[in-house]
Each structure stands twice: as C-alpha cells, then as structure tokens.
C-alpha cells in the first residue's frame, strides 16, 4: 500500500497510439474548418437545438465521467480512507484530461470564441445571476486546479531526471507545492461540488421546455449524486482496464470495498429520482407511450441494475461483475445527463437534431487525444503505484 508511484515506461508510439493519432488528425482538421466556416456549416445545431452533442456529451456527460478524481479525493482526504491512496493519481489524471477535453469542446461550441477571454477577465460585467457564468468560471478554475493537483507527479519525475534547470526548479518547487497542496485539494473538492450541481441547475431555466419527467427542483442534487456515481464507475473501469493493459497487480479488494461505499449514493439517487416524481404526481407521465417515457425507463432500469449487481459481498468481489456494474453505471449516469440536456429538451414541434458527421468526428478526435495523453503520461510520469508483474506493454 505504501508503494511509491512509478512510471510505467515502455514504447510510446505503439500501433493503437498511431491509430488514435490518425483519429485526432481528422478531428483537428475539422476543428479548423469549424472555426473558419462557422457552426451552421459544420454542425446540425439550429435555433431549435442550440446545444447539441458537444454540450450534452463532451461537457455534461464527459466532466461527470471525469469526476473520478473528485470521488477518490472525497474518500481519501475527507472520509480519511487512506488505503485508496494509490488510486488518486490515475483518477486525478483522468479528471484533468476529461475536463481539458470539455474545455476544448466548449471553446469550439461557443459561436464567438474570439471573445472567450473576456469571460474570466471582465469581472465588472459578470452577471452574478447567470448559472452558466458560475459553471464556466468553476470549470475553468477546476481544470487548472486538477492539473495543479497532478504537479507532484511531474516534479517527482523531473527531480530525478538529468541535471539542468528543470531539475533544479523541480527540487525547489516540490516542497512549496507539497505544502500548499491541502488548499489546492480543498479547492479540487469545492469546485466540482459547485459546478456539477450547477450543471443541473442550468436546465431549471428552460422551464416548461424540459419534459416534466426531468424538470425538477432536485436537478442540482441529482446532478451531484450522478457525478459521484459516475466518477466512481470511471475509477473502477479505468483501474481494471489499466490492470489488463499494463498487467498491473489487480486492485479487486480495494474496488470491492469502494463499490460498497457506492450503494448509498446509487440508492439515494434512485429514491430521490423516483420519490420526487411519485410525490409530485409526475410519475404517471412515465406510462404515456412516447419517446420520453422510453428514455426515462431505459435510464431508470440502467440505474437500478448496478444496485442489484453490487448487492452482495460476493458479487462485489467478482471482478467481471464489478466491471459490468461500473460500465452500466457510467452508461446510466451518462444517459440521465444526456437526456436532461438533449432528449428531454422540447423546443417545439418539427424541430429535430442529430449530430452531424463533423460534430461526431471532432468529439471522437478529442477522445482519441485524451487517450493518447493518458498513455503518454502514465508511461512517462509516476502515476500508478502497483508494481507491474512484468515490463509494461500497451
């Protein structure tokens, strides 16, 4: 448990990475086209659906999947479960990459991107009633903070690297970063609590345009709970996948204990979601045969499944079962958020949206970049703590 984190090493430009680079290259070209030609030429967005894939998936779903760092930090630093400590760095890394990708997507999505710099700087113009302003500033700050949380990993590597300015700087900076880390970590806990709940509050403003099965004053709380569940699921998913790919010592004991902590969160979400609908009499809408009811049931069944899959201790110790539960949880939380922002949004009759090819390829390219970044960083910097059983390949 007290093993130090180590870099995995190994070749960087493996075949999968070359494929990912090609995918990203396609996305990069389309990004340039989008910036030059505008949103109408490159996306399926319209006055009816001003927000599409990039917001509903890259930002709203993506940042929740990137809440692993937030989730593990709550466990380790607040609930004082020190034994999960080895999982912090990989989780923080995924968070950093996920939030960075969301930031890039927002930048591409805003129509007047060349004015984006005004947002953090024109504080005298800030509309403090705007929930989106809070979300935007919070996500910007958190993206910075989450990379800052990762700096010890970079400094440790440079500290032990070849002599030079970088080494001297790292040796000097490390104690400073280490000392101030408490306040950085605290910020890393505060900011997601704020913006992940506020992402839910965003849709309160759409009022009757959001289908009543989703429109509720509990949106902020449901969004907070869903991001914790998805953060957890992403940690399990990522940990097991890394074990497989890098032939690392499996962390099944730790993951089994983690999944026990997840049950109250999942149950809380489920009870709040159904209880709110039932007590306000909106649950009857789930029995109207339309696409909203279908989306609702799909989402609800998916949320209930991990509750069943993780119910007994034996189930939680079965790696295959744990992996399935994590995948379903990511899908369930993702679907809840995606539905809230896109499927359940009703701008009126005769308006439709399905993402265009450039939208999908840009999102795909950014995900490819995220995976490349992950692979390069875990191979170059001390992220993982488990000793590899043999030299890493991947």
């Amino acid at each position: 448990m007290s093993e130090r984190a180590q870099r995995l090493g190994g070749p960087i430009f493996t075949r999968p990475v070359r494929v990912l680079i090609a995918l990203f290259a396609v996305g990069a070209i389309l990004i340039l086209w989008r910036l030059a030609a505008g949103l109408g030429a490159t996306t399926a967005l319209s006055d009816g659906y001003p927000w599409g894939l990039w917001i509903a998936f890259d930002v709203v779903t993506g940042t929740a999947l990137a809440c692993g760092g937030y989730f593990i930090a709550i466990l380790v630093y607040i609930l004082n479960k020190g034994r999960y400590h080895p999982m912090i760095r990989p989780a923080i890394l995924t968070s950093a990459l996920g939030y960075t990708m969301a930031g890039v997507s927002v930048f591409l999505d805003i129509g007047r991107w060349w004015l984006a710099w005004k947002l953090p700087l024109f504080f005298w113009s800030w509309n403090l009633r705007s929930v989106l302003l809070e979300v935007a500033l919070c996500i910007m700050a958190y993206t910075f903070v989450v990379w800052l949380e990762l700096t010890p990993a970079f400094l440790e590597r440079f500290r032990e690297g070849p002599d030079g300015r970088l080494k001297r700087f790292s040796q000097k900076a490390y104690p400073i970063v280490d000392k101030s880390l408490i306040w950085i970590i605290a910020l890393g806990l505060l900011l997601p609590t704020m913006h992940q709940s506020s992402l839910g509050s965003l849709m309160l403003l759409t009022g009757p345009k959001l289908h009543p099965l989703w429109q509720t004053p509990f949106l902020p709380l449901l969004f907070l709970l869903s991001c914790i569940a998805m953060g957890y699921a992403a940690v399990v998913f990522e940990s097991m996948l890394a074990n497989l790919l890098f032939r690392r010592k499996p962390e099944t004991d730790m993951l089994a204990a983690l999944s026990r902590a997840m049950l109250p969160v999942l149950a809380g979400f489920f009870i709040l979601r159904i209880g709110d609908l039932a007590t306000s009499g909106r649950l009857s809408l789930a029995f109207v045969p339309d696409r909203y009811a279908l989306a609702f049931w799909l989402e609800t069944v998916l949320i209930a499944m991990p509750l069943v899959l993780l119910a007994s201790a034996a189930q939680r110790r079965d790696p295959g079962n744990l992996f399935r539960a994590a995948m379903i949880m990511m899908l369930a939380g993702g679907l809840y958020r995606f539905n809230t922002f896109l499927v359940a949004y009703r701008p009126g009759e005769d308006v439709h949206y399905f993402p265009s090819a450039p939208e999908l390829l840009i999102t795909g390219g950014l995900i490819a970049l995220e995976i490349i970044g992950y692979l390069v960083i875990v191979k170059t910097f001390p992220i993982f703590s488990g000793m590899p059983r043999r030299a890493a390949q991947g």
Partner: protein
Amino acid sequence: MSVDRRYLLKSLVAAGAAAVAAEGTSEARVRTPLPADALGLLYDTTRCIGCKTCVVACREANDTKPDNSNSPGGIWDTPMDLNGQTKTVVKLYKSADGLHRSYFKAQCMHCADPACTTACMLGALSKREHGIVSYNPSLCIGCRYCQMACPFNVPKFEWAKAAPKIVKCELCRHRVAGASLAKTDGYSRYPKGHGPACAEVCPRQAVIYGTREELLADARRRMAEHPDRYVPKIYGETDGGGTQCLYLSHVPFEDLGLPTLSARSVPDLQHTIQHGIYQGFVAPLALYGLLGAVIFRNRRKQQSEQPEQENGGRP
C-alpha cells in the same frame, strides 16, 4: 472519521433542503419591478389582416435581408419563423376543421423578468431604458444559453456566419436617437420614424405601441366593449411573470403558439435555488475552509500514525 462523514452528508442535505424550500415559494413575483415608462406592443388578432407590412418595415428599420429560402426561385420574402435575419414575423393559424383562423405576429416579448438576461454570462442581453431587452454583441461570446432559456424561442443565432451574433427585436431602440416620448392620442409615442417600425406602419392598428400601463388599459377597454369578441384574457399581463408585449386574441392563446406559463417568472425557480445555496458566497467559502481543515487534520493524523509511510497523504 465519523465527524467528517457528517460534514459531507450535511452539505449534501443542505443542497436538497434548499431545493425543497424553493419549491414552496411559488407565488407570482418579479424581482425588479418594471419602470413606469416600460414600453411594449399590443397586438390584437381581430384587427390583423396579415398584410405583413410590419415585417417589411422591420426589415427596413433593422437593415435585415429578406428571407427567400422557402420561396421557389427566391422571389418572395417568406420567413417561416423568427430567424437569424428576421426579428418579427406574421404567421397564420388554422384549426384542424378549418373553421377558426387567426394571424399571429411574433417578436421579442420583452419580459418583465426575462430568462435570457438571467442566462447571459456577461450581460450582453440586459434590460435597459424603458425595460427593453437589449443586445450588446461586444459582451456576447455566443454560448446560446439565452436560446435554451427563452420560453418563447425568441433569440435567434446567425448560424450561417463565421462571426455570428444573436438576433432579436429590440423595439427599434436604435431609431430613438435622442427623440423623447410625448402623449399622442392617449399613448406615449416618439415622433414618427423614431418608434417601433412595425407599430408605426400597421394600417389597421393591429399592433400599437405605448407604455405597458397604457396598453393594458386599452386592452381592458377593448375586452369590456366587445366581450364576445375576445378570449377573456390579456396574454402577457401575468404570464411568465408578465411581459411588455401583450396579446388580445379571438382564439385560444396556445393555438397561436404562445406557451402556457404560470404567473411565476421563468427564471424565478432557478434563482431561488441558486440564491439559496450561494447567498453572498458564504456557503462555498465556509465549505472551502471546512474542507481544508478536515484534510489538514486527516493528513496530520495519518502522518502520526504511519510515520514510516513514504508519500503519506500526498497525491
């Protein structure tokens, strides 16, 4: 450890409690009352003949290009709805049996408590002189949250342009140019050529302009004189917290495409919840201090328990 868990639970429950508390406050209210000189339009479906002179006048006054995208050969200006080059439009409603029909003029409603100005991050959309919901492109980054928020789907975006703007009716505020309001025929009006173009050119006074109070009084007078002619309601008097543009109609308002809104303003629920959580930013700051303190304590405890542990309590 148990204490720390309690901290976390408390903050979660607090958010929920704020949400529930917010649900209880559902009475009609507008946070900032309208100024006495709030200007608006009154549109009367019984007077409109669908000539679209208002649409043409709006184009001239606002220098927008005719929309011939729906016209074979591109000869007619036929916008299907408000769009990135159309700030007002006249639509025709026909009932399924064909017995009832009505024209309907759409433009910005200039809400008393608008969802779009609440949404807008830097205040590019804001309520300015005479309560007019105004647009300042230099503060707009094009996020389109205003479009998501508006219950009337009014703000439109210039999708075809690489440097797009939000497009919406600003009650021809650019035409005022220093002119001042004066009482004319019982209404506060600008000298001709300085007021809202659509109202100035309407040959049937189907759409007129004046202060909201004057228009409300006129609407009530018309309903009292011809109670058989109108649906007994002035749309916009209280709907969505009240709007400065008002409608009288002989067919149900929902048939005209106007949303059914309560007297509670659209942004009120969100504001109540967010304000409950973030009042004076006290809760986030307190939570921050608390989180820092708990982390500090845990780290100290862990270091004293396991002094030999390398990397203890560090990410």
